[in-house]
C-alpha cells in the first residue's frame, strides 16, 4: 500500500508560534471560574467566556488521554462546544439542526462493535474499546465545511484511519472503502423518507489512507457526544461534511465505488467525491464563500479554500482529474 507523505505533514516546518497553546483550552474551567469570580455574569460576558473557553458543564472530566499531532490545523478560533453539539446534521435523528441534540440520547453507544467486511484477508468484528486502544489518540483540530455553506473549527480526537485499515489487511483488489452507519428504525424514528437507510458513505482507498482522514472518537477532550456521531466516525476534512459518516458499525472494502446516501437521494447535488471546491457550485448555491458558525450575522463571509485549505496534503490525490465532472 502506497501512503503519500508529503513534506508539510512532517511538522518540522511548522513554526512553534503557530501551534495553538494547548494549555489555553486545557485550563478553560479555571478560566471560567475566574470569569465567574469577577462577578461578570451579564449575558455578554457569558458569551465571551464561551467563545474563549467553551463550557463543558455536562462532562465532569476529560475522559480521553491525547497526544499532540503535527496534522492539527492552527491559527483558527475554535467553534464553541455548545454550537458543535447543538447545530448538527444527523438526519436519522431529525432534519432540523437542533433535532439531533434533542433526540440522539437513545443511541446505544456501548457495547459497540464495528464489522470489517468485504475484500479483506479475514473479515472480523472490532470492539470499540479495541479501537480506542489501537493507536495513541491525537488532538486534531480541523476546519469542517458543510455543503450547505457554513463551517466550524472542531478539535477532534482520533487517529489516522490508515492505522485501522492496516490492521484490517485489505486485499490488493480493494479499491474503495464503504462506511455504514448505525440504523435502527426504533431508535432513529425521526429519519425522513426519501433516503436509503442505513446511511452509507465511501472513499477511494487512497483517500481513506491519507493521514488526514481521521478515525474520530472524541472532541474537546472527551468522547464524542451522540449527536456528533458517537462512538466512532470518520472525519475527512477536505470534503463536505456529509462525507464524514457518523456512528459507524461497518467498514466494507470493495472493488467498485460504493453507493452513498446523499448521492442516491440527489446525484446532481451530491457527488461521490464532494471535495470542498469554491469553483464548483452546488446547484442551489455558490460554494465560493461560507459563514462561520457562532459569529454574529454581520461578520463578513469567509472565502472558501480549495480542498478546505488542505491542498498541500491532498491535491495530489486528484492530479489530472476534472473536478467539475467528478464533483
Amino acid at each position, binding site marked *: 500500500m502506497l501512503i503519500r507523505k508529503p513534506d508539510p505533514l512532517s511538522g518540522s516546518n511548522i513554526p512553534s508560534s503557530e501551534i495553538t497553546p494547548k494549555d489555553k483550552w486545557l485550563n478553560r474551567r479555571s478560566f471560567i471560574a475566574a470569569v465567574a469570580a469577577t462577578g461578570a455574569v451579564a*449575558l*455578554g460576558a457569558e*458569551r465571551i467566556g464561551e467563545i474563549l473557553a467553551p463550557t463543558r458543564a455536562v462532562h465532569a472530566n476529560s475522559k480521553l488521554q491525547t497526544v499532540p499531532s503535527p496534522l492539527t490545523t492552527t491559527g483558527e478560533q475554535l467553534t464553541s462546544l*455548545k*454550537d458543535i453539539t*447543538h*447545530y448538527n446534521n444527523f*438526519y436519522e435523528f431529525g*432534519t*432540523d*439542526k437542533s433535532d439531533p441534540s434533542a433526540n440522539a440520547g437513545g443511541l446505544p453507544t456501548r457495547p459497540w462493535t464495528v464489522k470489517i467486511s468485504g475484500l479483506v484477508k479475514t473479515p472480523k468484528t472490532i470492539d470499540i474499546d479495541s479501537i480506542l486502544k489501537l493507536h495513541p489518540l491525537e488532538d486534531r483540530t480541523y476546519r469542517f465545511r458543510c455543503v450547505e455553506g*457554513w463551517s466550524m473549527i472542531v478539535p477532534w480526537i482520533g487517529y489516522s484511519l490508515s492505522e485501522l485499515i492496516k490492521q484490517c489487511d485489505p486485499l490488493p483488489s480493494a479499491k474503495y472503502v464503504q462506511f455504514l452507519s448505525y440504523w435502527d428504525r426504533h431508535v432513529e424514528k425521526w429519519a*425522513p*423518507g*426519501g*433516503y436509503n437507510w442505513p446511511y452509507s458513505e465511501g472513499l477511494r482507498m487512497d483517500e481513506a489512507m491519507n493521514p488526514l482522514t481521521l478515525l474520530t472518537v472524541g472532541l474537546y477532550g472527551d468522547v464524542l457526544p451522540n449527536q456528533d456521531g458517537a462512538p466512532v466516525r470518520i472525519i475527512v476534512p477536505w470534503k463536505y461534511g456529509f462525507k464524514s459518516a457518523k456512528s459507524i458499525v461497518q467498514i466494507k472494502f470493495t472493488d467498485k465505488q460504493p453507493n452513498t446516501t446523499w448521492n442516491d*437521494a*440527489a446525484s446532481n447535488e451530491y457527488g461521490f467525491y464532494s471535495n470542498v471546491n469554491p469553483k464548483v*457550485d452546488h*446547484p*442551489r*448555491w*455558490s460554494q*465560493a*464563500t461560507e*459563514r462561520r*458558525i*457562532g*459569529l*454574529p*450575522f454581520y461578520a*463578513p*463571509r469567509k472565502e472558501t479554500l480549495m480542498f478546505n485549505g488542505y491542498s498541500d496534503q491532498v491535491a495530489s490525490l486528484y492530479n489530472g482529474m476534472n473536478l467539475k465532472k467528478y464533483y
Partner: protein
Amino acid sequence: MTRPTLISLKVLVWLACLYPVAMLVYGAVTNNLGPDPTKTITFSTGLAALRLLVISLAITPIRQLFSRLSWTIKFRRLLGLFAFFYASLHLFAYIGLYAAFDTHVMIQDVLKRRFITAGVLAWLTLVPLALTSTTGSIKRLGGKRWQQLHKLVYASVSLGIIHFWWQVKTGVMTPMPITLTMTALFVARPVLTWWKSRNTRQPQPRPA
C-alpha cells in the same frame, strides 16, 4: 364593533405582526440568534411573510362563513403590508448576508437557482400590491380593476411556497403545514361561493 374595540384590536394585530422582527432585534442585540444567525434571520423573516400572506387569504372565507366577522376585512391591508415588509426583510437578508451586496453573485443566483428565481418573482408580485394598497389607489383604479390586480396575491403565495419547497432537502417536511393551509384556503373560496349561491338561489324557470 365599537371604535375602542377596533382600536385595541388594531394595536394587538400590530404587536403580533411586529413580534417576529422584535425577536430578531432582541436576539441580535443580546447576541442570541443561535449558532447560525444568518439562517435564523432569513428563515424567520421568510416564514413570517408567508404566514401573514396566508392569514390575509383567510379573511374572505371567514367573512363568507360568519357574517358576524365581516369586520375582519379592516385588517387585511395591514396583514398584507406586513407580509410585504417581512418579504422585503427576507430579500434584504439574502442580498446582505448571502450575496454580500455582490451584484454578480445575485444575477448568477437568480438565473441559475430556481428556488431563488421563484423567491424573487414572489417578491416582485407583491410590489404592485403594496404600491396600490392605499384607499386612493382603490378609487383611482376603480374597485373592480383593483380587485383583479390584487388577485396577484395568489401568485405571490404560490411562488413563495414553491420557493420554500425548492429550498429544503429531500424528505424535509417543514413547508408542509403552511402548504396545506394555503391549499385549504385556495379551495375554500370557490367552494364557499358555490355553497352560498346554492342556498340563496331562487328557483329559475326553465328556458323555453
